[in-house]
């Protein structure tokens, strides 16, 4: 079996994998990082979004071997170094941006990529960016609100939660 090595949340990891092992299975099964979810397995839902070399991608549709040498960040690597929630994560909590939480890791990882590229997105830009993330319970409105609030806070403005 071939071996794959990469950096996940700042830690060097290596493991034997099959050719067909998906990045998401490598993360969940080999590394036991189960925060990255599989909703559809077919590129629709975005529950599996992680960052590969800084870009958000759907880990259900990338081979682990294709990530050889890559820097991966998963939802487990998003909190502050002291373990407290990041601004973006806290905004989801404050603005009720989740209910069951199944889609949330993907939503947060996708939004984090957006805010890195665009510190001041419009509501429309947030909604368009979330095209590849489905949520079956929150209804998007509060998710969008949370992302806009996190963006504002990261720019040094403060928006009160309801």
């Amino acid at each position, binding site marked *: 079996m071939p071996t794959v090595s990469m950096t996940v949340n700042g830690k060097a990891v290596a493991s034997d994998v099959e050719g*067909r092992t998906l990045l998401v299975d490598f993360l969940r099964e080999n590394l036991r990082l189960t925060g990255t979810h599989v909703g559809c397995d077919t*590129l629709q839902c975005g529950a599996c979004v992680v960052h590969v070399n800084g870009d958000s991608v759907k880990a259900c549709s990338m*081979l682990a071997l294709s990530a050889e040498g890559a820097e991966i960040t998963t939802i487990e690597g998003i909190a502050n170094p002291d373990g407290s929630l990041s601004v973006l994560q806290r905004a989801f909590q404050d603005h009720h941006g989740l209910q069951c939480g199944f889609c949330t890791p993907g939503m947060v990882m996708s939004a984090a990529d957006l805010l890195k590229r665009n510190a001041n997105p419009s509501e429309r830009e947030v909604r368009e960016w979330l095209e590849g993330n489905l949520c079956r319970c929150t209804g998007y409105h509060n998710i969008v609100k949370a992302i806009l609030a996190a963006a504002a806070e990261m720019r040094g403005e403060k928006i009160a939660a309801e």
Partner: protein
Amino acid sequence: MYNFDYVKPASVADAVAALQGEDAQAIAGGQTLIATMKQRLAQPRTLVDLTGITEMQGISVDGGVVSVGAGARHAEVAGSAEVRGAIPALADLAGKIGDPQVRNRGTIGGSIANNDPSACYPAAVLGLGATVVTNAREIAAADFFQGLYTTSLNEGEVVTAVKFPVAAAASWQKFEQPASRFSLVGVFVAKVEGEVRVAVTGASEEGVFRAAALEQALASDFSAAAVEGASVSSAGMIADLHGTPDYRANLVKVMTKRAVEAMS
């Protein structure tokens, strides 16, 4: 998904050599192929990953030609200031493919080599009259697309770049199928190399095509009214649960009108 051997060559020559193997299959971003393999509709013995090949990367504009490496991801083309400056409609098209995560993986080479009848890129390649560069030769867009999921690529031949002539004006209008985010009908209109071209994707059972009647009408009168007066036949158009052939034929005109208006 059935298992396979995986190789990631660093050069086009090594990739071509690896593709000589029995049931070897090239993979780029994998945003179509991985799903196909999960459904066991494809079962390569060896998967040849093209994403590590530096010579297939990069975008450059030179002497009225935009060269896009086959490995360029949709997000790179959409975000390229050079592409946006030279052919804004091409950057637009790339920026509307799929969703942000798909755009961070999917590549132009993969899209055109697959030639899905509803894919977006074939419309720009045909509409602009681009040249497809492979490891072996250069292929004119009109010869490259050969119908449903079929191209003139030989077994083991690899697309390395696409060269687009800079258009005087162009517009991409996509009527999106909201679940799949493919084109239900997408129209690429270009004024390029002295003619008006109208390339349509998503509509025909044969894949991307040029709408001759619309091109003729627009050549003498570049206006929405000219589009209105032309007729688009629904013969051979796709019938599925998203739309009838007549609906698609009508959409071809509607989207062409939008493109013409955007260019006027």
